[in-house]
């Protein structure tokens, strides 16, 4: 399995397509950081405009932690599209090149072959998230410094002490990895059905866009379906950035408001991953490989 994994990782990183995601993310993060570095105060004034009429904020609102939060809000919606470029190509790419038939003549079970491929695609997803974490968190805190994190929810504002933020990012990135793994699994699943890469890539992107729209629209019909869509749960990394209050309305430091929601979302995403990967393996095992 380890050897299979290594071979697949080697193949992924030999393809120029793999680096598109890293380049796109680097360009996006750098341009946003540059914009915020030059004129971030105006952006913060706009963000806080609803509150600045009534309150004075003393201290540095625009710090590395806030920049990282802004970046994650913007990026984690689009990263799935970049992940699809690789994950939806895992099987269909081989079929397209005509190497799939050759590969399964090797003395490796189809299950191991598929798991090796999925683990390699997951590794690519992990590296992409580590790269995002490095640029969005490490570089932002280096550029903008650290401080308390103030974020706005629909109904309220949450302030987190600077010594209570880093672990939340660690948790948020771990959760985001699970969410992106669900996308990886979806792309991987769809790649079994096609003999060219374009179809599964476009199908994965279309499903994500379609589900995301259904997850965000407040139409009662959709609201019944939303808890079952993986896209509704992918954004719940934000739950790490909300605090509980005690009976006297004091913030409980180091707490998470909706831990149950996080567990629930993690379970739903886990189920999706298992279903997609198992489905891909079952279908691949029953499939006649002709290409």
């Amino acid at each position, binding site marked *: 399995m380890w050897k299979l994994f290594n071979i697949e990782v080697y193949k992924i990183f030999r393809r120029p397509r793999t680096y598109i995601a890293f380049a796109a993310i680097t360009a996006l993060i750098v341009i946003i950081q540059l914009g915020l570095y030059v004129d971030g105060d105006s952006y913060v004034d*706009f*963000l806080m405009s*609803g*509150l*600045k*009429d*009534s*309150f*004075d*904020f*003393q*201290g*540095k*609102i625009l710090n590395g932690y806030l920049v990282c939060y802004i970046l994650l*809000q*913007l990026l984690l919606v689009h990263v799935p599209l970049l992940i699809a470029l690789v994950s939806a190509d895992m099987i269909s790419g081989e079929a397209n090149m005509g190497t799939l038939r050759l590969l399964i003549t090797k003395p490796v079970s189809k299950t191991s072959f598929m798991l090796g491929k999925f683990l390699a695609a997951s590794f690519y997803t992990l590296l992409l998230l580590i790269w995002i974490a490095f640029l969005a968190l490490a570089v932002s805190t280096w550029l903008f410094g650290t*401080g*308390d994190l*103030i974020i*706005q*929810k*629909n*109904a*309220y*504002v*949450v*302030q*987190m*002490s*600077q010594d*209570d933020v880093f672990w939340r990012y660690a948790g948020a990135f771990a959760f985001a990895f699970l969410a992106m793994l669900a996308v990886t699994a979806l792309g991987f699943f769809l790649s079994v059905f096609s003999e060219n890469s374009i179809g599964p890539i476009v199908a994965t992107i279309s499903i994500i866009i379609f589900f995301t729209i259904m*997850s*965000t629209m*407040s139409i009662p019909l959709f609201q019944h379906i939303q808890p079952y869509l993986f896209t509704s749960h992918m*954004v719940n990394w*934000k739950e790490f950035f*909300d*605090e509980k*209050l005690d009976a006297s*309305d*004091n*913030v409980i*430091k180091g707490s998470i408001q909706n831990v149950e929601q996080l567990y629930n979302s993690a379970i739903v995403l886990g189920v999706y991953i298992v279903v997609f990967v198992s489905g891909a393996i079952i279908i691949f095992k029953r499939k006649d490989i002709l290409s």
Partner: protein
Amino acid sequence: MKLLFPFLVFIFSLNTVQAQDAATLVSKLKEKLQKVHDYEATGILKTDVAFIKSPAGKIIVYYKNPDKFTLKRQGGISILPKGGMNVNMASMMSFDYLAIDAGEAIVNGVNTRVIKLLPNDEKSELILSTLYIDPVNMLLQKAITTTRSNGTYEMLMSYGKYAAYGLPDKVVFSFNTKDYKIPKGVTLEFNDANKADMEKMKNKKGKVEISYSSYIINKGVPDSIFK
């Protein structure tokens, strides 16, 4: 008719005496507060606003006569009600005003004189200030201030070891908050907020509490701190 004139003179003079009393009391309080030229105080700031979840944090407050005041949260951000956080009580009486005696009241279990301060300048930002002064210890126990742009806010003071300087150990600011509403496009939160949460956040009074642990009085505070 013969008796009416002396009666009216008596009533007017009584009012004048009362007004003088009120003005004298405010002046005496002001004099006491002005003995503090500057201070550096450490304490804990707690913001209690329905739609703001903010942890309590350590703060340092700097004041310099006549009206320089700043509050710094150690390594963090402090959220304070606009316009209402000038803890420097001397500056609350540093405008040209008319003092009116409005009776007596009990605040924090202490008998106080209620004095209303009306600004003489019609365009003044301040509309009305009501002071509850403890005349025995010459301490301001409570102040209700109405301003043009920041509404009405209330300050309730508790005194301890710095009472001799007229400096409180604890100040509680109460103020009215507007409803918090922000477009989803700004927050990028597309899930609807919980309705119970939304109701809880409405029409609540906000409070900011500062509990001071120590003051360093009249030892000099550099101007650079207020920039």
